[in-house]
């Protein structure tokens, strides 16, 4: 790192801006000077994820919860279950309602008020993933056809935003769902009202395990994995690949930006597959540890 720093200084030449100043004054050049040497300002390789940590079930008021950190980026997902009448067009299904929120505490740029575009797009993205991968079978959420079903509110909140929101959200959602336990509900024949037995709880079956891998593209040539907030804002494009355990794509989400060649896409795909293995292992390990 120290060596890199010196190199940056000479790059700036005789200007009386210190190396740290260079970062703020011309952040793009600063990052590019690292990428040229196949490394990144935080010392990572181009295809290296930040440390991912997971805490499953930290919130006792939620039916299921998980806290995920990828580097500094921290996301908490809490699952709250409520009872409702099934939708009229699919009377044998329940609801899953995911929302991603970026409250003002997660980043300096976020102002209080309704969610901004990024959070809304993330909500839609997560909703699409749930729909596509059938992570939970909505039929499993039905308690009695046409009468009663569960609504799973998956509230995903970013507590610290340092890039790569989508990957973190997917892991948090997956881990929280795996942690979710619903009480037993029966419908009382006399009153026609539901009766909830908090003593009998059972897990819901998680059907599929989607895992995301995000990439940032610099000038059509360099792709880096797991971008930080700085890297995201300087990159010319970002992309998220979501893969399930069978290696099928749940999503290729690239909301614009500069073009990406087929070969690069292929490389990213390969990285996404290994990432899936890493995350599955991590989730299983943590789940195992909390069972004990």
């Amino acid at each position, binding site marked *: 790192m120290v060596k890199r720093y010196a190199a940056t200084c*000479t790059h700036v030449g005789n200007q009386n*801006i210190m190396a740290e100043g260079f970062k703020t004054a011309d952040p793009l050049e600063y990052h590019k000077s690292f990428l040229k040497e196949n490394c990144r300002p935080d010392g990572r390789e181009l295809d290296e994820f930040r440390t991912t940590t997971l805490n499953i079930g930290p919130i006792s008021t939620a039916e299921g919860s998980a806290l995920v950190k990828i580097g500094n980026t921290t996301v908490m997902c809490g699952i709250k279950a409520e009872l409702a009448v099934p939708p009229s067009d699919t009377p044998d299904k329940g609801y899953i309602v995911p929302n991603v929120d970026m409250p003002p505490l997660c980043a300096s740029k976020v102002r209080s008020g309704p969610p901004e575009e990024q959070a809304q797009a993330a909500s839609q993205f997560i909703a699409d993933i749930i729909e596509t991968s059938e992570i939970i079978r909505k039929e499993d959420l039905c308690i009695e056809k046409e009468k009663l079903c569960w609504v799973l509110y998956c509230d995903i909140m970013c507590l610290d935003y340092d890039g790569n929101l989508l990957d973190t959200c997917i892991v948090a959602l997956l881990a929280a769902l795996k942690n979710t336990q619903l009480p037993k509900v029966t419908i009382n024949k006399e009153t026609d009202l539901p009766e909830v037995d908090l003593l009998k709880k059972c897990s819901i079956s998680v059907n599929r395990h989607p895992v995301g891998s995000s990439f940032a593209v610099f000038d059509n040539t360099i792709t880096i994995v797991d971008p930080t907030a700085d890297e995201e804002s300087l990159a010319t494009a970002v992309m998220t690949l979501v893969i399930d355990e069978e290696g099928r794509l749940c999503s290729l989400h690239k909301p614009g930006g500069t073009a990406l060649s087929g070969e690069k896409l292929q490389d990213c795909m390969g990285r996404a597959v290994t990432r899936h293995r890493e995350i599955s292992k991590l989730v299983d390990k943590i789940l195992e540890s909390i069972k004990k």
Partner: protein
Amino acid sequence: MSPMKLCVPGERLCSTEDCIPGTGTYLRHGYIFASLAGYVLRKNEGEELPVMSVVKETETQLLPDVGAIVTCKVTSINPRFAKVHILYVGSTPLKDRFRGTIRKEDVRATEKDKVETYKSFRPGDIVLAKVISLGDVQSNYLLTTAENELGVVVAHSEAGAQMVPVSWCEMQCPRTHAKEFRKVARVQPEYLQA
């Protein structure tokens, strides 16, 4: 070496009879109290009494103050003034952007009426400036570059290359050799690299 004393805000450090209050402290009822969490420093600075201050690991110059040297980026210019974003106060980066204004008459010290902002700054330039006023309700921080050491330090030419200063009012593009006008800051020798 004895362990350095630590304190949290609100802690009473000493009486004003023993010390002069420095940074990170405040005075109340004749005593000096800490206003920061950090290390307690007692320094003799040639005065009768030592100065008592509290320091954190990072510099706590959080706001541009009158007289402070700031590093800023020019965001827009018009014939009357240049608008800038203040990036640094001294050597401390600001986490949030503060806006400032360099008025035409504050660009340089001499021949003020002949100053043209267009020949002094361009959007994107990195400029060293000094805070002259916090401004009023409507305006931003008012800055000046009317000193030899102040002015443009980094600028890019039309061709996109970083230019080299050739005089106090001109910079040159290394690629096209075209010269452009700027209010150039004199490069201080201690920053020059071998």
